[in-house]
């Protein structure tokens, strides 16, 4: 069930070709995650495929509740289990399937080679330790750095992510920082050991635009400097346009569209993506009701048959209620291939070419 491995990986990053020799840093293949709850089995991730190369940025967009965070938690190996279980697929990191490794080995990789910036900055910082202690611990535990040296490093990191008066504030507790500052502390923590892969789960949602720009620039700089792969989960299409190489759009636990950044905005090939783009408020649009995709997100205990989006889709036909659309390779109207584009819609042609 749910295996639709028509593989169209969006490997078309800027200035890179899909057939380039270097293997991806991370390759997620047909990943499936479910939550076994009292009310039934919630299918949160239903066959997700993507890849990220060193130095590349993949942005994951999508419906709130579509499995963006849960699929990343599965990659990191920090899924809340039980009730969460990876029930299928592979997570190949530097050539090794992480799902086959011992938990000990995974913990090592997690500490030093991949890091995650969490969506919930406050609850992922420990309230009873100072920010400095928590930052310094990264160096003490993984690098064996001395206590005073670790503190110095902590101050450096805080300065690097733009915390004013870092020397004084290093001794403060998380609740004494504003939402945005806590998020910057989280970024500092993820960057501390210069990992190969960073998964940033809405790293800038709590930040205002000027700091947002700074933080994204900082992430991009460090990424270039260390040639890190970056998976950026975000709702902010403006941020995506600024930094991503390619985009994957999720709905109900599946990737429904993949595309290089500029392509996606210009001509979406999936009705959900189109609805999303139409919902963006603009500075010049005032007084009117905002466009919103009608209806409710699906109940994961009972995902609609066929295309999960069909109850809300303005283009739905009979086939949409019975057949799950595979990720089709999207081409030009004349059949010429478009690198890195895919759409899980029976009517992708009509959607993109009108």
């Amino acid at each position, binding site marked *: 069930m749910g295996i639709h491995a028509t593989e169209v990986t969006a490997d078309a990053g800027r200035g890179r070709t899909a057939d380039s020799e270097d293997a991806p840093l991370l390759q997620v293949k047909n990943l499936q995650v479910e939550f076994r709850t009292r009310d039934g089995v919630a299918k949160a991730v239903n066959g997700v495929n993507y890849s990220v190369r060193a130095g590349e940025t993949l942005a994951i967009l999508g419906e*709130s509740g579509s499995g963006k965070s849960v699929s990343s938690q599965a990659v990191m190996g920090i899924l809340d289990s039980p009730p969460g279980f990876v029930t299928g697929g592979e997570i190949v990191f530097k050539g090794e399937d992480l799902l086959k490794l011992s938990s000990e080995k995974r913990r090592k990789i997690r500490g030093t080679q991949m890091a995650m910036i969490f969506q919930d900055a406050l609850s992922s910082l420990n309230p009873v330790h100072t920010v400095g202690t928590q930052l310094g611990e990264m160096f003490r535990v993984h690098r064996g750095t001395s206590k005073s040296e670790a503190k110095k490093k902590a101050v450096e990191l805080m300065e690097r992510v733009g915390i004013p008066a870092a020397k004084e504030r290093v001794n403060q507790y998380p609740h004494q920082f504003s939402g945005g500052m806590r998020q910057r502390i989280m970024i500092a923590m993820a960057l501390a050991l210069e990992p190969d892969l960073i998964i940033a789960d809405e790293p800038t949602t709590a930040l205002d635009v000027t700091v947002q720009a700074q933080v994204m620039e900082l992430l991009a700089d460090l990424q270039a400097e260390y040639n890190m792969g970056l998976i950026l989960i975000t709702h902010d299409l403006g941020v995506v346009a600024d930094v991503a190489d390619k985009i994957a759009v999720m709905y109900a636990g599946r990737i429904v569209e993949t595309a290089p950044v500029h392509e996606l905005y210009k001509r979406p090939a999936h009705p959900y993506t189109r609805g999303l783009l139409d919902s963006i408020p603009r500075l010049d649009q005032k007084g009117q009701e905002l466009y919103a995709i009608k209806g409710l997100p699906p109940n994961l205990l009972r995902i609609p048959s066929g295309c999960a989006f069909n109850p809300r889709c303005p283009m739905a036909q009979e086939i949409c209620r019975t057949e799950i659309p595979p990720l089709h390779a999207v081409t030009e109207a004349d059949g010429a291939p478009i690198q890195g584009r895919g759409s899980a819609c029976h009517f992708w042609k009509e959607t993109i070419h009108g």
Partner: protein
Amino acid sequence: MAEAQEAAEVAAIEAVMEQKVERGEPILQVRNLEKHFPLTQGILIKKQIGAVKAVDGVSFDLHQGETLGIVGESGCGKSTLAKVLMNLETATAGEVLYKGEDISKVSGRALKAIRRNIQMVFQDPYTSLNPRMTVGDIIGEPFEIHPEVAPKGDRRREVQDLLDVVGLNPEYINRYPHQFSGGQRQRIGIARGLALKPEIIICDEPVSALDVSVQAQVINLLEKLQDEFNLSYMFIAHDLSIVRHISDRVGVMYLGKMVEIGSDEEIYEHPTHPYTQALLSAVPVPDPEGREGRERIILGGDIPSPANPPSGCRFRTRCFKAQEKCAVEEPLLAIPQVFRGQDTPAAHESACHFAEDVDIVGATNGEA
């Protein structure tokens, strides 16, 4: 005796709550509000070595039936301001007049009574929901405290209606917060804020964790409820497009101060404060082609510490127009001298010695 006094206090507050305020008249008046957090040193004997001036002399009005947007850099004091208005933090100084009555020092049962009319939606959907309560209990909790709003038998249905209203499946009523995604949790918080149909809702980043389509649904919903129930909103957010969409007036904060306030047109099309201008120029534009021809004002320098703000104008360490006067004289929030008495949208309150009406390319119509 204390009890009698408390009862009298409650009665007095309830009398104030009964008063009707005309549309467009001030329902909340904030005067010179301050919140300073002490900075201490030492483990056994704590010694105060200073204070974080999170909110440092802020004054503004919230009018009945309007939405006042509040924007500003991370750490500038927006959430603290909201919490002080809600009396979740005690003000260090200043007043919060609700229908003319100072509520900044109210406590106990009187405070509880006021909360019937003033509610808050919190910024952090992770820590503001009790993990041991079901969603139904969380959203229904305000009814426990104010049972007169919904009779016991109706509560479950009310809660299901609220879930539906914020775009969550009513079948989820028995689930716990950790079973929801970030955006779903934020909607739970919104549903709870709406439960009592209060007069004033203070929304602290109510939509920042939502995808744009759900965000649009929630914004449309807030606007619909406002029309229906004549609600007044204070709407804190950092997404300037959303703030413009929903707000009648907008206030811009910087380092504990309100630096500019005016109608949405005045702020977005005729910003006169350099900080507002920089903010507007930094708005990310989703369409990669719409961003050409825009000039970003990149702010140099670090955000100063609110424990030790710069002298004179607090923005001067990063301002591209700063002059000597800015270091010695604090600019007050008022209509700038140059525009006084003129019939121009630039004539609105702005705390800058050198206020100028600048059209930020791309901020108004997207046409360069």
